[in-house]
């Protein structure tokens, strides 16, 4: 193999952030403000990352609408929503620091919707006891990413757009020192050396057929961390959002914001029944309305009424929809009906949910002010991920930090809506801070091993050299069909074992795939370089799902339908060793201090 590593373009920084969604932007801003030479590397154009799709809002206990709210209530909601599998310290830091991060965005120019007394307005969402989501209509993610993007470009951060990172390489001491990738517009290889790296690469959701995730969500960061030897936790915990579009088929999976339910929308089956009243789990019975009348009163009076069951955490609602459709009470396209038309005025719907109105009108020909939307579960969010230290977001590999969706722990087994945007801000900032500190303390210049770089380049280029192999598009489609069928919202031992077998053969097929055309902006080749991450993350999910013989949060086993208290005390930790072998160990959760445990003993209301 020729050593052509010296031919490739190389850049050196103090801190390199991979991924330019909310977490990556916030991390880069922090590292740069701490004086570090900082680069931001992203697969798409700046401002197009998946954060832009977030709709409902950012959860932060500011108490602007309900002064009863505070970080302890938010912390408790988050932990209960996560079925207590969360890293308690992350959940605590998140609840404590989110308000400051939102106010910071406002100082940077964000324009959140207002209360009548001029403060930031907050909206109701599933699993949050009080209206807590700072928002801008139903396009909060756009506001967040634009504000951070505009802040970042005034700080002299170097942005490498449409640049895909393939691998992280370590120096002799085992610290990450190099990232190797390529420019999508030219197909030319590029490497970055740095004293610290932050992964902020988002999700893995493109491995499912019906997903709210974009083409970018191929689990690059999850896979690169695992290949570098990092601990991965609770990879079986994947969130299926209850309300994705189901028709037309070409838009199946596109998100319908939980804000529709937060603003009064209700779910009905084909018989017109508000079926969520039939699915209230004991854990939430004490704080959930048991009649439509009480649920309806709650929107105006949270103190004397309990929340409607449509606003249970997402895992509960998604499973319930699944059950209704299975029982034959679904709509014509296999979903159920989300009705806001009969609940709120047309004007209000257009004002509060403009992008949902637009989306259904344009893509499905449905006027949501007059008709119900047909919706069903869609793969949405990855709770599991790279294990990090709560304070610093440092992974178990020196020099490597992770924030946002690629990191695990914060959301436990199920994420509450709205907690993702604030997660990005809180832990993006912390990762940037800790990475800057690590970079300053790292004395040895990061070393590059030319042979390792050459091996990465050779692997990426290999599909060009093969003739007659399968197309990467066919392989991607095969992965998606298989994961949807065998590692979907409801799982069984038999199906998960079959999935692992399928992944073996898909991995073999991927070794033989071939790509045509040139290197410059070649989506077929680009996809071919995404497939290794998709295969690795899919395997981690299936292995975790097989071992977690219980149902908890986003992970539901038909053969183990109840939570197992013993499994509720452990993270499933997976590692890939230097020879590519996967190991899995249950390890005890961090012990929560007594004063926080008390929060779970008191009765709500």
């Amino acid at each position, binding site marked *: 193999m020729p050593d052509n590593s010296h031919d490739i373009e190389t850049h050196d920084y103090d801190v390199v952030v991979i991924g330019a969604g909310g977490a990556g932007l916030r991390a880069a801003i922090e590292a740069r403000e701490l004086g570090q030479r900082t680069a931001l590397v992203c697969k798409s154009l700046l401002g197009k990352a998946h954060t832009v799709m977030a709709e409902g809002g950012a959860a932060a206990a500011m108490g602007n609408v309900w002064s009863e709210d505070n970080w302890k209530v938010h912390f408790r909601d988050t932990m209960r929503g996560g079925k207590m599998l969360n890293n308690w310290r992350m959940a605590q830091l998140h609840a404590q620091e989110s308000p400051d991060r939102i106010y910071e965005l406002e100082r*940077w*120019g964000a324009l959140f919707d207002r209360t009548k*007394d001029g403060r930031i307005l907050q909206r109701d969402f599933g699993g949050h006891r009080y*209206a807590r989501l700072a928002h801008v209509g139903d396009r909060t993610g756009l506001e967040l990413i634009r504000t951070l993007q505009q802040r970042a470009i005034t700080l002299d951060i170097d942005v490498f757009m449409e640049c895909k990172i393939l691998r992280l390489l370590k120096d002799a001491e085992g610290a990450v020192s190099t990232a190797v990738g390529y420019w999508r517009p030219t197909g030319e290889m590029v490497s970055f050396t740095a004293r610290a790296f932050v992964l902020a690469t988002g999700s893995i959701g493109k491995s499912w057929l019906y997903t709210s995730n974009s083409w970018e969500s191929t689990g690059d960061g999850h896979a690169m961390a695992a290949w570098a030897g990092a601990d991965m936790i609770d990879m079986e915990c994947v969130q299926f959002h209850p309300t994705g579009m189901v028709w037309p088929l070409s838009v199946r999976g596109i998100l319908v914001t939980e804000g529709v339910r*937060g603003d009064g929308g209700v779910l009905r089956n084909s018989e017109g029944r508000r079926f969520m009243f039939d699915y209230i789990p004991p854990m939430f019975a004490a704080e959930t309305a048991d009649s439509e009348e009480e649920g309806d009163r709650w929107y105006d009076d949270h103190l004397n009424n309990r929340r409607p069951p449509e606003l249970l955490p997402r895992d509960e609602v998604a499973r319930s929809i699944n059950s209704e459709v299975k029982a034959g009470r679904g709509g014509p396209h296999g979903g159920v009906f989300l009705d806001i038309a009969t609940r709120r005025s047309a004007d209000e719907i257009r004002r509060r949910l403009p992008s949902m109105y637009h989306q259904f009108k344009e893509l499905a020909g449905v006027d949501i002010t007059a008709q119900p939307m047909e919706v069903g579960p869609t793969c949405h969010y990855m709770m599991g991920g790279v294990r990090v230290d709560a304070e610093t977001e440092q992974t178990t590999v020196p020099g490597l930090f992770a924030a946002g969706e690629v990191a695990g722990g914060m959301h436990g087994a199920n994420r509450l809506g709205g907690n993702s945007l604030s997660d990005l801000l809180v832990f993006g900032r912390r990762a940037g801070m800790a990475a800057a500190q690590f970079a300053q303390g790292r004395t040895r210049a990061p070393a590059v091993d030319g042979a390792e770089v050459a091996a990465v380049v050779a692997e990426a280029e290999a599909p060009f050299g093969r003739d007659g192999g399968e197309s990467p*598009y066919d392989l991607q489609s095969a992965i998606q069909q298989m994961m949807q069928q065998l590692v979907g919202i409801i799982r069984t031992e038999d199906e998960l074992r079959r999935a692992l077998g399928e992944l073996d053969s898909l991995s073999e097929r991927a070794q033989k795939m071939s790509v045509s055309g040139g290197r410059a902006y*070649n989506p077929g080749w680009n996809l071919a370089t995404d497939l290794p991450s998709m295969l690795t993350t899919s395997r981690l999910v299936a292995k975790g799902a097989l071992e977690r013989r219980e149902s908890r949060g986003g992970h539901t086993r038909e053969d183990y339908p109840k939570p197992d208290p013993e499994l509720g005390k452990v993270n499933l930790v997976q590692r890939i060793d230097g020879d590519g072998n996967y190991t899995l160990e249950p390890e005890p959760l961090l012990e929560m201090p007594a004063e926080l445990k008390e929060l779970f003993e008191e009765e709500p209301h």
Partner: protein
Amino acid sequence: MADVTMRVWRGDEDGGTFTEYVMPAVEGEVVLDVIHRIQAGPAPDLACRWNCKAGKCGSCSAEINGLPKLMCMTRMDVLPEGEPVVVAPMRTFPIIRDLVTDVAFNYTMARQVPPFKPREPEADGTYRMQQIDIERGQEFRKCIECFMCQDVCHVIRDHEENKASYAGPRMFIRFMELESHPLDTDDRRELLRERMGLGMCNITKCCTEVCPEHIKITDNAIIPLKERVVDASYDPVAWLGRKILRRTKRSALEAALDAPGQHTPTRQEQPTRPVVSATDHS
């Protein structure tokens, strides 16, 4: 269903040509779906940008039958039946490959916008703003940066030479957003006149027509900006306009909150509960 004929521009900076792909028609599809099926079939290396596929990220702009549109929001069934669908890259930007153009110009211009400088916060460290005072700014912040307004702008569409001294409609709404921000303290009039080429816009409103977010770019941003940069001493109308706008920078309530003896109303003092819930039924 019948077939659809897609006539897609293929090529790079050295030139190119339209290539026809005949694909089976599928109910409910948008142009981007058909492009994706072409990629998965006859042309795996066909280059296009896309991300969200729901009109929220502004990545998949192209010229469809000659008109700038988002491919993800253009349904096949609204295009003339039985005729080829012509898909070309945006013309104003240099070609990278096929439908992908080099939009770096827009990012370069964005870097020249000075950072937002807000006034001092209230005593509690946060700000008060009234919804009505932020709605203009929110209109501009709906921008998804599809750059179709830049694509159709006559000043740069066939005049590469103007790009060095002209920011374009996308940046003008960014400036107007800052100008109308209730917390803003900066003055960008010199910059707009000297560096951003505001005077070169001849308000043909092409930008407004193609905006997928229906932002009134010309009426609500460019014309008010033009009024502002006109020298106050020569234009009493513009001067008056500025005065009036200055007042909206701070609402009466905000001023009251700053007054001596100010206090923030507590929840109990507020007339109705909840003050504004997420479901404000007014």
